[in-house]
């Protein structure tokens, strides 16, 4: 096959690139139309009107929270580890509305477990549910075409929140969009044009949002490429000709370049953002321009209160991410931070040596008796310290005597 590659695009017998381009365009069209038809619930052209329920009509039936402006803020789960926001709706046919979108925002979405709960007019005593995969960016979308219970007339929908609600969850609205082939196509193209910015999780999940895409560009391209290659090969065999490998190579290269151009555009856009944010700045200025600039400023203040290295520093704070990230700003001082996610244990009194520094911030394990200049353990043990920095509220820096 590769031996034919050299001839593949040379244009000696035919125009393989033109053939490949036509085949690929046709294949994309077939794949897109097929996917759109599958997701349109039988509505080819006219979409039924979308149903939007604003936060003012959402009721927090479990968990605690409050209504602020145009949103309901869920602040805590109930004793059973659950919060539920629900609303009744004018019954609508499930078949015509195969998708529900929740307009949500939170600073920490990954520890949350979300589900859509609904009731139908036909089975009023029963509720159904479906999990919602949400990356934290854009609306939380659930596709219900495959759900057995999504049938008949839907009379009410609810959002169930489980997991760890470390940060408040803001719920602005729920929308049940009316779909047709054109609206699905529009959605697919909008999803393909999504910008994937570089974030902390990008090193492991650069395309996290794609898992909830109606049809990811990769899947569409793979199907289009496979379909085009197969159609071309079968057509050639039908005509009792040997398939021209040049066309197959051109198909592969074209499909790859299409995917890669989107990625290149994303990288280019990201580079513009990065340049605006960081170019020409010193490291200190870059930190100030970063998303965690507040933390850096705070840790800078603490660092300035510490002696230069080598010095041992115990950094005590309850939050794991804060502990890890905050520690980074102390290096090259010799900083200790507990690596466990849970069961955080403060050091024992005998593990604190004279001259060690202790930084406490949002920490509940050890108390500081300012009057007696003592660190106090929950069981009453004590250790004499000198105060280096005291902020209330804020970090406390102590030197062990």
């Amino acid at each position, binding site marked *: 096959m*590769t031996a034919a*590659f*050299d001839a593949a695009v040379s244009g000696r017998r035919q125009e393989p690139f033109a053939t490949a381009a036509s085949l690929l365009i046709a294949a994309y069209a077939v794949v897109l139309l097929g996917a759109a038809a599958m997701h349109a619930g039988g509505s080819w052209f006219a979409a039924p009107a979308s149903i939007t329920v604003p936060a003012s009509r959402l009721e927090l039936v479990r968990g605690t929270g409050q209504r602020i402006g145009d949103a309901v803020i869920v602040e805590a789960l109930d004793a059973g580890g659950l919060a539920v926001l629900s609303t009744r709706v004018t019954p609508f046919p499930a078949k015509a509305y195969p998708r529900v979108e929740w307009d949500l925002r939170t600073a920490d979405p990954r520890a949350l477990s979300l589900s859509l709960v609904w009731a139908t007019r036909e089975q009023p005593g029963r509720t159904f549910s479906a999990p919602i995969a949400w990356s934290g960016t854009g609306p939380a979308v659930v596709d219900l075409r495959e759900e057995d219970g999504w049938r008949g007339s839907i009379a009410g929908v609810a959002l169930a929140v489980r997991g760890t609600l470390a940060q408040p969850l803001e719920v602005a609205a729920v929308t049940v969009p009316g779909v047709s082939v054109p609206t699905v196509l529009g959605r697919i193209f909008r999803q393909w044009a999504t910008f994937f910015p*570089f974030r902390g999780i990008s090193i492991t999940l650069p395309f996290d949002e794609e898992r909830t895409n109606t049809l990811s560009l990769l899947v569409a391209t*793979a199907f289009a490429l496979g379909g085009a290659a197969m159609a071309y090969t079968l057509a050639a065999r039908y005509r009792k000709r040997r398939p021209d490998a040049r066309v197959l190579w051109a198909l592969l290269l074209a499909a790859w370049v299409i995917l890669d151009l989107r990625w*290149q555009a994303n*990288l280019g856009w990201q580079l513009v953002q990065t340049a605006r944010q960081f170019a020409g700045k010193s490291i200190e200025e*870059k930190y100030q321009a970063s998303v965690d600039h507040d933390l850096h400023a705070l840790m800078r203040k603490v660092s300035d209160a510490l002696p230069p290295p080598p010095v041992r520093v115990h950094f005590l704070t309850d939050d794991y991410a804060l502990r*890890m990230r905050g520690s980074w700003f102390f290096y090259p001082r010799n900083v200790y931070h507990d690596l466990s996610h849970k069961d955080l244990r403060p050091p024992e009194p005998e593990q604190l040596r004279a001259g*060690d520094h202790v930084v406490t911030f949002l920490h509940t394990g050890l108390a500081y008796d300012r009057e007696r200049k003592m660190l106090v353990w929950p069981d009453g043990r004590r250790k004499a310290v000198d105060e280096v920095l005291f902020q209330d509220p804020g970090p406390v820096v102590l030197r062990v005597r």
Partner: protein
Amino acid sequence: MRDLTGVALSVALPWLAGALWVMAIRRDCGERGWLPAVGYGYLTGAFLTTLVMRVASAAGVGWSLGAIALPMLALALAGYVAGRPLPSPRVQWTPEAREWDTLPGSLRAVFWLCFVLTTIRLAGLALEVAWRPLLPWDAWSQWGTKARVWFEFGRIVPFVAPADWLRMGDPMAFMDMHSYYPGAVPLLQVWTNLCIGRWDESLMNAPWPALAAALGIAFYSQARRTGAGAPKAMVFTYFLLSLPFLDIHVALAGVADIFVAAAYGMAAMALWQWTRTRQRSDLVLAALMAAACPAIKIEGMFWALTLIPPVIVAVNRRIGFAAVGLLAAVALSYLLFGPPQLTVWGYVLRTEFTDVSLPLAQHLFIMDNWHLLWYGAIAVIVLRHRRLLQPDMAPMTVTMLGAVGFIAVVYYFSSASGGVDNESLVNRLPLHMVPALVFYLLLLLCRRRAAANPL
């Protein structure tokens, strides 16, 4: 200007020393091209730089630009002397140019298209690295920590386990998230900072784009040696360097995985060349790159071990297949009869199966992490299944079986399953094998069982 000069020096000096030593290693080799030397030169030189820094630290010589650069210059000179007489690049270019002249315009256009796209990609990634402070969690919790401390003290100081830190009370014994991780990558960051003359958390990551460029050159040169024409070799080089997940690991520099990927890929390519040409220099290069793997990350040891079975297969196919079969039987026996848990180099192996297929499938086949690579791999292997175990391909296939087997065991039967399930690890091990995999696919598609093609 000082920064630019420093960064250029930090990349150029190891690259020069490494390339000259690769030329020296390939001294008695009939096909002694500059391109493989340049491709393999950077990683070789970077590895040498870390060795020089380790020796200086052990000898009590404080690190400074001069203290490291002078030995590196001496090494470059020694490489030059050992490699003399060096072939003329111009003489080597002549047959290339002749071949180029015979190519039709459309093929040249394909070559230039892929070359330009690759160059734009690498340039953009280099700028991203130059501007951005450390972003990934691992970069500032376990790699940059060591670099920061070692740069401050001008030598290697120990990082110990948290419990030891508390027990010892030694102000010069440090800790971070993974205190025992190898030091090669932080040492390279320190070296770059020494060249710049100050701690710079962005510019110190210059080795990442340099490595990506070196990987591309090494890949292209090895592809040419298999007999692939310039356009085909360039297309596959573009395929490799355009992979989004690989690009991300360059752009968000500071994490060591791409170094393992490059070292393992270069080792596999050199080894596979050896199975075809039996040139000792290929085997030496493969051994050198394989030795770099565990110096970069602990799992690099496992990756290096996957290169042993193909050597046996290349020497004696029957014995090799028997050895591979035996290994598979041992693994299966462990799963059936072994203890529930077994700790091997920090990994806890379990006989219990953890199904992580869903996140794996999402990341390989739904999200655009790897473009069409995994679809293509399946298609090529199905289409070329008859070639897989033919004598010329068997060592390569056995290498890839070992790589896939390693990933399968780690993901489905080890403590790392949790990391795959929560998706923090799901693409990392595949990244390590991807350069080798792309080369393997190129070989599978290569009709010609080429004798070496001099560059």
